């Protein structure tokens, strides 16, 4: 029993490299123009020193399941001990749930921000600066992925399998039916962000998913006429700039006691809650463009 368990754990640790396991040396067809892309020369592993190092490494690897068990139980045990000292789950008397902060947000959130959804009021009004930084994190992540992907030398047709998928009848018809509904649902989530659950992040992710489905089922060239690098830059920079300037205006007016043109309005209306609806739209645009940009960069190496 114990031996079986150890064997299973060792297999877990040593398996799983099916990509590298296919790569044996005589399978390689060497082409002269591929010299810089060749896998590293492994002939040095046959020397005496390397063999000794390998046996040492194998002995170390044999100990890894033991390390794993000890580590898992140490971390889990320590954290479980901490959990026993925590206040009971679901009680209202904990410091986080009975303090000044929560009472303030719930009591005056509706009258100050006009948002029926208190979470939207928190992340886009009280803590709007946080959300601005997070949108910039998404932008920076896209730039990082773009740099990493554009450094590669692409072949003529890097997505041969995705091209096969494009002729798939089931996928095409499913996409034809569901993409319009997905787009409308995403726009509804974004516009309804201050009235119910949702907001820019989830709606933008739904729209990005719809664009990914469309681009997988149909030719991505038709989508690239609308959404290419130029329009991506335009949309994202316009959305981030609008967010920054709108919050600058709001902070300036709020700090100096001036009247803003964005009032809280009647709670429950679609045009209410001041800046939350336009900011949700800006965040939704950034998130949907980022999600589609990730997909496009991963498949084709460019937006």
């Amino acid at each position, binding site marked *: 029993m114990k031996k079986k368990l150890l064997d299973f754990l060792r297999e877990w*640790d040593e398996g*799983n*490299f099916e*990509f590298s396991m296919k*790569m044996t040396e005589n399978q390689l067809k060497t082409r002269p123009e591929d010299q810089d892309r060749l*896998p*590293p020369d492994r002939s040095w592993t046959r020397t005496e020193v390397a063999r000794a190092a390998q046996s040492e490494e194998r002995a170390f690897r044999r100990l*890894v399941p033991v*390390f*794993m068990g000890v*580590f*898992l139980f140490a971390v*889990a045990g320590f*954290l*479980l001990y*901490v*959990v*026993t000292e*925590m206040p*009971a*789950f*679901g*009680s*209202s008397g904990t410091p*986080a*749930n009975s303090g000044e*902060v*929560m*009472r303030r*947000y*719930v009591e*005056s*959130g*509706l*009258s100050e921000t006009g948002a*029926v*959804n*208190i*979470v939207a009021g*928190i*992340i886009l009004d009280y803590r709007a600066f946080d*959300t601005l930084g*997070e949108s910039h*994190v*998404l932008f920076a*992540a896209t730039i*990082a*992925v773009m740099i*990493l*992907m554009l*450094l*590669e030398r692409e072949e003529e047709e890097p997505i041969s399998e995705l091209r096969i998928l494009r002729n798939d009848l089931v996928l095409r018809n499913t996409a034809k039916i569901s993409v319009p509904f997905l787009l409308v649902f995403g726009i509804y989530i974004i516009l309804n962000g201050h009235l119910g*659950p949702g907001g820019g*992040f989830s709606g933008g*992710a739904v729209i990005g998913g719809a664009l990914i489905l469309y681009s997988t089922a149909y030719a991505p060239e038709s989508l690239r006429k609308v959404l290419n690098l130029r329009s991506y830059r335009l949309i994202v920079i316009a959305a981030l700039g609008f967010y920054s300037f709108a919050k600058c205006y709001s902070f300036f007016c709020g700090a100096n006691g001036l009247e803003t043109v964005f009032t809280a309005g009647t*709670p429950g209306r679609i045009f209410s809650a001041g800046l939350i609806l336009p900011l949700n739209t800006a965040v939704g645009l950034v998130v949907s463009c*980022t*999600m589609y940009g*990730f997909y496009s960069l*991963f498949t084709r190496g460019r937006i």
Partner: protein
Amino acid sequence: MIEMLWNNRIQVAAVILFAVGLTTLLLHRNLLKKIIGLNIMDTAGYLFLTSLGYIEGRLAPIVTEGSTDPARYVNPLPAGLVLTGIVVSVSVTAVMLALTLRLYRRYHTLNLDEIYKAVHREQEEEP
């Protein structure tokens, strides 16, 4: 103590998932498995944070019937904090996957030990 653990069972689940994710992240050699482990760890942290704001028998923090009584809703603050974290974790995942692709294109393995050895070898060859 067992009763205390049973009362806090969502936090216990979050702690176990955190330990599983951390173990996968630190001790597995496959790069994609490491990314999955990091994602599990992320979600476990969010679950722990969200469970602290839950109050038994109260409503979601969306104002209904015009009542802004604090004794009617759960704590909205952890949800607001976690919402930003989820989206950031996706962009972190995307950057890590791009780095994995670059490593695979250069060294042709997902095994981190092999990559270390190849890097060491390359450094030795350079004068």
